[in-house]
């Protein structure tokens, strides 16, 4: 029982990381109906930026917000330079562009930083404390805390501020929003910036666990897809819940299903995507897609 709880708790911690990246996917999906396949690579590059800053002797807690701001700016630049010229292109074109962007960013990181895995510092120690019989590392607690704060901040931004309101309006009804004076094109850019910053959090949180290298996010993005799909791809809350469920499921499967172990955990993530799409394509929180014909 205790071992089970142990697995659940560490699943929640890793699930928080999936949730951040899944939320980034949902933000862009909502803004333009597009799954951004480059989201993981954008997060990876942001993590390398953080790494470079830390190596220059800056303190972790200064680097963290600075990286988020840079990632935010980078997301806006990518939207303006790469996405905006093809905004009205068919969705398949956009998908291929994000795939190309992923490859490009991956190669760029390899070119600049090499492919040798590097250890990335964590702000929290790996020591564990005993919480009601379950051992939790400060690192896991820190990951949960930071992910939770970021998700809360995004929630408050979207639901409680005027900018958040116009962001949601532009995402759902671009035409009607324009008639209310909302600058829809800039709202899309803002959405990309926000997604990029939220995704960067997942990169920074996962790097101490996985080691930093250009391919670091390639498994995490699969779990994030699983989380987003499970949550209903359109729902920010769904992304968070989905992330936690995927984290716990994957962790439990690795611990208790003998042939899964550590090696087939990724397959569990993919299985979740397939099962959700077959059984409940709208996910847990998604609305049924209706279309006039």
């Amino acid at each position, binding site marked *: 029982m205790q071992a089970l709880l142990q697995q659940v708790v560490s699943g929640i911690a890793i699930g928080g990381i999936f949730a951040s990246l899944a939320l980034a996917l949902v933000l862009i999906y909502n803004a333009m109906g597009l799954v951004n396949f480059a989201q993981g690579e954008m997060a990876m590059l942001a993590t390398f930026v953080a790494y470079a800053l830390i190596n220059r002797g800056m303190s972790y807690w200064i680097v963290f917000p600075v990286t988020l701001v840079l990632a935010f700016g980078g997301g806006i630049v990518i939207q303006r330079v790469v996405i905006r010229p093809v905004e009205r292109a068919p969705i398949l074109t956009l998908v291929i562009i994000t795939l190309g962007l992923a490859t490009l960013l991956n190669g760029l990181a390899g070119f600049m930083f090499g492919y040798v895995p590097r250890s990335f510092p964590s702000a929290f120690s790996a020591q564990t404390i005993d919480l009601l019989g379950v051992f939790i590392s400060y690192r896991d607690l820190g990951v949960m805390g930071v992910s939770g704060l970021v998700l809360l901040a995004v929630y408050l931004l979207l639901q409680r501020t*005027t900018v958040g309101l116009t962001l949601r*309006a532009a995402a759902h009804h671009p*035409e009607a*929003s*324009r*008639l*209310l*004076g*909302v600058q*829809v094109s800039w709202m899309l850019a803002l959405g990309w910036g926000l997604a990029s910053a939220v995704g960067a959090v997942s990169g920074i949180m996962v790097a101490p666990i996985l080691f930093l290298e250009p391919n670091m996010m390639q498994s995490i993005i699969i779990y994030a897809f699983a989380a987003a799909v499970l949550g209903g791809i359109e729902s920010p809350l769904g992304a968070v819940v989905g992330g936690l469920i995927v984290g716990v499921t994957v962790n439990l499967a690795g611990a208790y299903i003998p042939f899964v172990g550590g090696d087939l955990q990724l397959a569990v993530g993919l299985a979740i995507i397939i099962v959700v799409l077959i059984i409940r394509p709208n996910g847990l929180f998604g609305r049924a897609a209706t279309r006039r014909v």
Partner: protein
Amino acid sequence: MTALLEMKEVHAGYGQTSVLHGVSLVVPEGGIVSLLGANGAGKTTTLRAITGGVRWSGDIKFGGRSLRRMSTEDVVRGGIAHVPEGRGILTELTVDENLKLGSHLRRDGAEVRKDYDRVFEYFPVLKERRRLSASTLSGGEQQMLALARAFLMKPRLMLLDEPSLGLAPMIVRSIFEIIRSINQSSRVTVLLVEQNARIALDLSTHAYVLEVGRVAVEGESEELQGNESVRRSYLGY
């Protein structure tokens, strides 16, 4: 009276299909002007041209300034509230959030609060449903929300696209009364597109009748109402 909105020889269309073939009209400051005509005559396209929702050529001036090459957002920020066909309600959002989108660009906080009071005086039902999703409103209530939101934008000119569409006659009457009152007490100029010519002519001072993308008849509303042949051939009552 000075002209607030002036269209000169405006041509517009969608892709290869042209819809407006040289429409000229004037909306005087403080007035209510009706734009009438059958389905497909180009009424909606005329409104869309004004707020930049469709490509056009010719000239459109608002308050003396040309609207040529201006984006929809900039036209709207310049003081034109457009309640489009289908009302443009954001059904994923609450009633309150829809209203806030109307006032979100304004910086005159005290005035905004007064205008909210006005809006809830006009439409008490919106106050009751503030926290509900806008998708739960009936057609009439959605029309009220659209009108309330447009009022909160504090526009100089309101473009209303068929506010009577699909509503019960009693609700139509009360909505038109409120349009009149917004026009009179807040000095908002109105350009009203309607199929229901009778009720539109009752409200407006001036009217234009479009026929296949051209102005077929224009004049004082009273005059058109009194003219039997115009009524029969263009207004259908």
